[in-house]
C-alpha cells in the first residue's frame, strides 16, 4: 500500500488481505527527478508533491496548477499518483492528465525487470506488476488543460504537444467512459499557429469522434455526455486560441 485509501476502503467492504506491504519505507519511492528528456516521478509521490514540484511547475505548469485543487485536501496530501493510476478507476483523475501528456508507467514485472507502458495501455499491465515511477516527458506542451468541474458527468484532459515535426492533439476522457478513453489527432506543421475558428471546430470533431461512445448511466445519458464533451473541448481550444500557444510552432 502507498496512501492506503483504496486498500482500507476494500477492507471495510470485507476484503481480508493476509499481508500488507507498506511501501513508504522504500528508497527512491518519493522524489521527482529529471533524467534526460524525462521527468521521473516516484510512485510514492503525492498529488500535493506533484503540484509543489519546481520541475513540474517549469515543464507542466497547467498540471501543477490543476493538481493543487484535485480531489480533497486529505487525498492530495496522502494519496499517491501511482495509487491513483493503479486503482484503474475512471472516476479518478490522474490517468487522464497522464495520458494527455504522453506519460508512461515504469514498473517491475514478475521477474523484477523494469519495463514501461504508456498510461493509456495500463490495462495491459501484467499480473504482479509493481509500479515504481511515472515518466513524464520533460518537454512542455504547447497547451494543456484539465477539466474536472463536471464530474461525475465527465472529465477530460486535453493537450497540444510537439512530437517530432508535428503537432499532436491528445484528448483523454475520464468518468464519462467505463475505462480510459483516449484519442489523438495529428496536425500538420504550422496548423496550430493558425488556429482559426473552423480549425478549432474541426479538431474538436475529430478528437471527439475518435473516442469510443460515452456510457449512459444514472448520472447522465451518452447523448448528453457526447454533446457536453464537444462543447467543453471546443471551449478549451478556443481558450488556447485566445491565449496563444506556449511556444511558437
Amino acid at each position, binding site marked *: 500500500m502507498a496512501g492506503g485509501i483504496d486498500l*482500507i476502503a476494500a477492507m471495510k467492504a470485507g476484503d481480508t488481505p493476509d499481508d500488507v506491504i507498506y511501501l513508504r519505507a522504500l528508497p527512491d519511492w518519493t522524489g521527482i527527478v529529471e533524467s534526460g528528456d524525462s521527468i521521473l516521478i516516484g510512485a510514492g509521490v503525492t498529488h500535493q508533491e506533484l503540484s509543489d514540484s519546481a520541475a513540474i511547475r517549469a515543464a507542466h505548469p497547467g498540471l501543477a496548477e490543476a493538481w493543487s485543487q484535485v480531489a480533497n485536501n486529505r487525498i492530495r496530501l496522502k494519496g499517491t499518483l501511482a495509487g491513483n493510476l493503479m486503482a484503474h478507476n475512471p472516476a479518478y483523475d490522474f490517468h487522464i492528465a497522464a495520458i494527455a501528456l504522453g506519460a508512461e508507467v515504469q514498473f517491475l514485472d514478475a521477474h523484477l525487470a523494469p519495463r514501461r507502458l504508456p498510461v493509456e495501455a495500463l490495462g495491459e499491465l501484467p499480473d504482479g506488476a509493481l509500479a515504481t515511477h511515472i515518466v513524464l516527458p520533460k518537454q512542455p506542451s504547447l497547451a494543456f488543460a484539465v477539466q474536472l468541474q463536471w464530474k461525475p458527468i465527465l472529465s477530460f484532459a486535453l493537450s497540444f504537444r510537439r512530437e517530432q515535426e508535428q503537432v499532436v492533439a491528445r484528448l483523454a476522457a475520464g468518468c464519462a467512459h467505463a475505462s480510459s478513453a483516449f484519442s489523438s489527432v495529428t496536425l500538420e506543421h504550422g496548423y496550430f499557429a493558425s488556429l482559426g475558428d473552423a480549425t478549432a471546430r474541426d479538431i474538436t470533431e475529430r478528437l471527439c469522434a475518435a473516442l469510443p461512445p460515452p456510457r449512459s448511466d444514472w448520472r447522465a445519458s451518452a447523448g448528453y455526455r457526447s454533446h457536453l464533451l464537444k462543447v467543453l473541448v471546443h471551449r478549451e481550444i478556443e481558450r488556447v486560441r485566445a491565449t496563444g500557444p506556449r511556444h511558437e510552432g
Partner: protein
Amino acid sequence: MFVQQDRAMKDDLSCVVNGRARSVAVPINRTLAEFLRDDLNLNGCRVACDGAVCGSCTVLLDGKPVASCSTFAFEAEGAKIETIESLSEGPTKLHPIQQAFLETNAFQCGFCTAGLVMSVKALLAAHPSPDDKTISEWLRSSVCRCTGYKTILEATRLAAARLRETA
C-alpha cells in the same frame, strides 16, 4: 474496522499525540480513528461516513490533515498527531480558531466541527492570509450538513485575522 482485530498481530505503536509520547500495542490493522477513540479515549475524532469523504474524522499527522477513519494506526509510527483536544486547555481557554467558530456560530449539531477546526488549522498554517477562493476550495474537503457553510467561511477569515495579529 470490519476486519477481525482480536486475531491480528499486534505491534507497538510509538507516536506523539497532542504533545505526549505514547507507546501502545495495537493490532496492525487498526485504523488511526480507532486508535485515538478506543485506545486513547480521544472522542473528539468523529467517525461519520467512514469512507474518507466527509472529513469529520480529520486529525493532523505531522501537520497534514488526514482522514483518520481511512488511515492505518501504523502510519502514525514516529509521527506527531494532533487532535481537537490539543487546541484548548479547558472550556474557557479556547484556541483562536475555536473562539472564532464560537463567535460566528459556525456550528449547529457539532458532529463535523472537530474535523473542520483541525482542517482549518492546517489551512492557516500553510496559508496565513488565505483569500476567499482559497478558503472555499480548502473547505470543500469537509461536509457540513447543518450550517450552509457561510458562517464557517466567516469563522476561518476571523481566525486567520486573529492569528496574524498574535503572530
